């Protein structure tokens, strides 16, 4: 069970309002994307959910419990892979389990194999390509004991081809684990291809502009990217994003 509720969150630095009355919900097992222009306060929102700072006003609930300023309740995958250069892939993947106590080496081996990285268990991160590193980073967050995962533009540094491959891979893995995911991106297509719902944020101060339900059936394939309803929804979202009130 893992349900995240953001309720009327305000945050500002000095006179500069960053988040203004942000509210949304991520249900158990749901894949929700936050879509917004760069600098729309997405990373601030992540800091709040991660408990690194407390909101000026409003509340964040995880499974009905208020978690303002509490760290360690979510699992996280940052924009850069953030792998530890002195740890082998296996040790990197096990990091979050080490932090909380119990390590499951067998499962880690399974996941590494599932990610197509068999044989790299004892390699160091610098020996891997960008896409491989991101896969390791994602496995690490999946193996974390927490059942709520925040992904912060994880594929933005990858080239187009690798990115689509990674998205498909992410979906296939996620389908097995059914963890709740909050995915931050500024790529409309990516958000549509991956999520159940898309929350569009306005730029500073960020507030929820509109919510879209993505109706396409899972499992999704690449063909979807060029279909009529997909393009129509994309147009819709695009206009919402660019339109100023």
């Amino acid at each position, binding site marked *: 069970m893992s349900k995240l509720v953001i309720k009327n969150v305000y945050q500002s630095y000095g006179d500069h309002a960053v988040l203004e009355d942000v509210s949304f919900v991520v249900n158990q097992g749901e894949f929700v994307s936050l879509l917004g222009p760069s600098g729309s306060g997405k990373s601030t929102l*992540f800091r709040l959910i*991660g*408990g*690194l700072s407390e909101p000026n006003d409003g509340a964040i609930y995880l499974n009905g419990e208020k978690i303002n300023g509490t*760290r*360690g*309740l*979510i*699992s*996280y995958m*940052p924009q*850069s892979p*953030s792998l*530890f*250069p*002195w*740890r082998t892939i296996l040790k990197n993947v096990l*990091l*979050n389990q*080490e*932090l909380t106590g119990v390590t499951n080496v067998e499962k880690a081996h399974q996941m590494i194999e599932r990610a197509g990285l068999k044989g790299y268990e004892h390699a*160091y991160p*610098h*020996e891997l390509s960008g896409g491989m590193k991101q896969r390791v980073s994602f496995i690490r967050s999946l193996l*974390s004991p927490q059942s709520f995962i*925040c992904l912060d533009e994880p594929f933005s540094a990858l080239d187009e081809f690798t990115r689509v491959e990674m998205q498909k891979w992410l979906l296939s893995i996620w389908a097995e684990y059914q963890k709740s995911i909050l995915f931050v991106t500024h790529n409309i297509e990516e958000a549509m291809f991956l999520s159940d719902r898309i929350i569009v944020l306005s730029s500073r101060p960020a507030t929820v502009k509109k919510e879209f339900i993505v109706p396409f059936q899972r499992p999704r394939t690449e063909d979807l990217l060029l279909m009529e309803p997909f393009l129509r929804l994309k147009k819709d979202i695009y206009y919402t994003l660019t339109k100023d009130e």
Partner: protein
Amino acid sequence: MKRMMQKGWRPLLVLILLIMAWEFSYHFFNIPDWLLPAPSSIVQEALIGWNEYAHHLLSTVQLTLIGFLIGSSVGIIVAIGLHLIPLLREAFYPLLIVSQNIPIIVSAPLLVIWFGFGMLPKVIVITLVCFFPITIATLDGFQQTSRELKHYMLMVGATKQQIFWKLEWPHALPSLFSGIKISATYSVMAAVISEWLGANEGIGVYMTLASSSFRTDRVFVSILLVVVLSLLFFTCIVYIEKRVIRWKQVEEGRVDE
């Protein structure tokens, strides 16, 4: 290794030429032995005199090892303390630097006045010389911890202790080793200086005796011993470093390609 062999011949050649020039001018200008002995007679003295200086050498090696171990432990502990307690760092960092501005040659006699002629003042001298490069380098390593990785550790809820042992400590290890390498070379010199203060045996004693009796060849032998010891010590540290920090070594190897 192969590349080192390929490049190593240049300094080696210069060295050989220098020694040959030395040997030549010794004979050509008829320099007296007490002023500057020929390299050949220094080598000869080094070979026959082994029995005379073996126990001095052993004593210096022992002193160096003890002093170095204590000095580097102090260095590491001070670095960790100053890093974990910012208040201490602000208070003591400037004092640390001042401590290095006092010449050992001045502080050493003071130590003898306070602690006598035993092992203790000598170990303190070596410690004073050794801890500083290690503390400074390690502190730097801690400070330069990747912000990105630290942010990650905070996001996933790592405690302060976990952040230290799993992130900051391994991150500072390469810096720690560069500090240790500097200290290792200094420690032999510091041991010899501390022996000048008053000791029964040691290369420092051997050197003092030799120079006061105008056995200049023996002075050069002791210089040779100090150099060889320092190099040996340095090589040992480099070897340990390579065993401990494997990931870095591979990384650098790749950059080279």
